[in-house]
């Protein structure tokens, strides 16, 4: 497989995932407004912090309110990680490799692009983000479904899998990091009845039902964090996502379980190892923020080394 094509597949999957994750977080946060209690003010800043776009946002808008944040994260053309930009870039990547993905995949992504372009930001901001975010979520789900149903699980598929899993791991890590800090500051006392916001965090990753089955308890921040970081099977936990990355990398290089062929595999192995044996109490002792920062650093290193190993290796001619 051509390096350029592998790279496009990797980014195609990342952009779709980023669009979906952003849509999920936006949607849930917005709906928390509707059932918000009086005890604290729902904050929008964390969403901007998560996207890493504080500077750009403050240049464009006065304050972080529901409308501004929705506009910025969903529609702004000059925000490179806005949903419309992610979809446009996903489609651009798909277009350069449309001969390598199935016709159904291409038509699905192309259709999603045109659907998204049809939304009028003004109307959507007035109506609230649900309709728009739903379109994105289902668009992403269709993409996964069509991919699964029509694309052979060959090397190209491994690059897609690594792309969406790595993006998902990073997004979940940021979500937990930002919300945890924010909520612990805001909430009157941990364990109080006011756990709507934690509920929202769970819902944004589609994990609230799983949480209840797993813990049979009310929403407790530590357990929510545990679910999102350490759960071995939930598809959006960091542990699950990074072990997907590891499996994909091993499938590409043919490396066995106890070794590694490149730095990307070494880091992926390290992360999965830690997440398999660490306990929440240990993580809190070390400091959650520092722990997640470290994970994010390693995820970044995995991305860099994939590029070095597969996309931009030096050719001596």
């Amino acid at each position, binding site marked *: 497989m*051509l*390096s350029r094509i592998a790279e496009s597949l990797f980014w195609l999957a990342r952009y779709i995932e980023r669009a979906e994750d952003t849509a999920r977080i936006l949607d849930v946060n917005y709906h928390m407004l509707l059932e918000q209690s009086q005890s604290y003010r729902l904050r929008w800043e964390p969403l901007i912090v998560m996207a890493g776009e504080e500077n750009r946002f403050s240049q464009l808008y006065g304050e972080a309110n529901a409308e501004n944040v929705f506009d910025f994260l969903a529609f702004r053309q000059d925000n490179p990680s806005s949903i419309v930009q992610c979809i446009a870039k996903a489609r651009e990547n798909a277009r350069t*490799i449309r001969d390598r993905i199935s016709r159904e995949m291409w038509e699905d992504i192309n259709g999603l692009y045109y659907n998204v372009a049809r939304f009028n930001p003004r109307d959507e901001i007035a109506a609230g983000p649900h309709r728009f975010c739903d379109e994105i979520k289902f668009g992403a789900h269709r993409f996964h479904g069509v991919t699964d149903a029509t694309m052979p699980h060959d*090397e190209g598929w491994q690059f897609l899998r690594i792309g969406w899993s790595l993006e998902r791991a990073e997004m979940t890590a940021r979500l937990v990091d930002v919300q945890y800090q924010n909520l612990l500051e805001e909430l009157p006392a941990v364990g109080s009845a006011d756990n709507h916001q934690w509920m929202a965090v769970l819902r944004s990753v589609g994990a609230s039902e799983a949480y209840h089955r797993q813990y049979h308890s009310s929403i407790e921040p530590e357990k929510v964090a545990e679910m999102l970081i350490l759960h071995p099977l939930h598809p959006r936990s960091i542990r699950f996502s990074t072990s997907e990355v590891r499996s994909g990398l091993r499938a*590409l290089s043919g490396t066995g379980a106890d070794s590694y062929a490149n730095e990307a595999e070494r880091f992926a192995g390290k992360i999965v190892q830690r997440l398999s044996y660490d306990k929440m109490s240990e993580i809190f002792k070390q400091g959650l923020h520092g722990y997640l920062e470290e994970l994010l650093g390693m995820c970044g290193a995995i991305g860099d080394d994939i590029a070095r190993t597969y996309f931009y290796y030096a050719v001596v*001619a």
Partner: protein
Amino acid sequence: MASIPSPTVRHGLFEGYETGNFYDEMFVAPGEPRPHYAKLFQKLGAMAPAQFEERRKLADLSFLIQGITFTVYSDGQGTERLFPFDLIPRIIPHSEWERIDRGLAQRVVALNLFLQDVYGKQRIFKDRQISRSLVYSCPHFRREVIGIEVPRGIYTHICGIDLIRDSKTGEFCVLEDNVRTPSGVSYVLENRLVMTRTLPDAFQAGEVLPVHHYPNELARILRSLSPRGEDDGEIVLLTPGIYNSAYFEHSFLAQQMGIELVEGRDLIVDGGIVFMKTIHGLKRVDVIYRRVDDDFLDSLTFRSDSILGVPGLMGAYRAGNVALANAVGNGVADDKAIYAYVPDFIRYYLGEDPILRSVETYICARPKDLDYVLGHLPELVVKAVGESGGYGMLIGPKAEAKKIEEFRQRILANPRNYIAQPVIALSRVPSYDPATRTVGGRHVDLRPYCLYDGKHVTIVPGGLTRVALQRGSLVVNSSQGGGSKDTWVLRGEE
């Protein structure tokens, strides 16, 4: 030709349709279809315009979702546009097609022999059939490839030869040859697909000859060129990238043939061998179906500012380590001045009379022709010899005095660069105008795609019918408001 006002048709979609003073492909006279159009007339004629409009929208949507678009650069930044598709097909009777098929095959073989000769032994100059200076002064003549032995002696693997039907005689003739990197064949295949989906009822079972074997046939020819033998050949399609107006076609053909679609940056030449960069290292490439022009192929041999090609590619080509389709330097054969000599080539190389007529051509490089052209500019079509896509053209009868004067100066400054031809009244096919929701006659041409394997010429029945959708326009090029139609060749009576 009916010059008296035609009676109008009172029949659904074709109500009020007039054939005008042109050869109409569908009607002998208003309301009176030609025999090969009779069944279609029954089906479409019974359709209400609103019903037809609905089908048309479906077809457009289908092209959009499939991303079958081309890019226009008129506004400085490339914009993706749909290539307008007209749902009323162009039908060619079988007997007529048979003759076209033989005529095109003859022409392709002669053009190939000409290229072999020009870049090889150059017999034709010694026999004084054409002057060396006329050939060497073609803008697309490539001195760099003289003496290179191309695989299996094939230069013209893929040709798109433009035909028109002259309203005056009702006869098909050759308008121009495209033997460099002709595009448009993907539309032939996609138009057919969309047509069968949107107007399935219009196809009379089994009567329309299929076109879908084109990619298989092309792949077979490309495989046969591999220097390492057919079974070991790695074949790729080289595209300038997604910003090229024909990018859709490049990816479409690569996918249909199951070969890698590469850009210049994916390839590298090492030790006279071409490789592509894969995730597991370098992999050897044997055959390149290149959709990049000669000038941009190799910055070491041709334009040094090109980033679309592969530095060193010509070295590998010369050494016989890689095959290119089409060959380099083909532009000398589709030069519009050389065009006038193709009937002579057919007689000289094949000892046969040309089956298809050519359009009378004045070569401004010849003093006598030049005088005539300058004296008759308002009646003639003037074309720059190396241009394609409908650019660099003057249509005398439609041009303003200022533009004619401008062309006169250009011709005088560089006569070799221009030829002129009489204006030909292209035939028309009924076409739907979405703005007025009516059907009117629109001018068409026909570009069949010919594949040559060194022995046989295979031509997909029909080809691309391009249609000048603007009322009265004669320019069918997609870059200038043209659209296309599905083209049917009917199965012959056994």
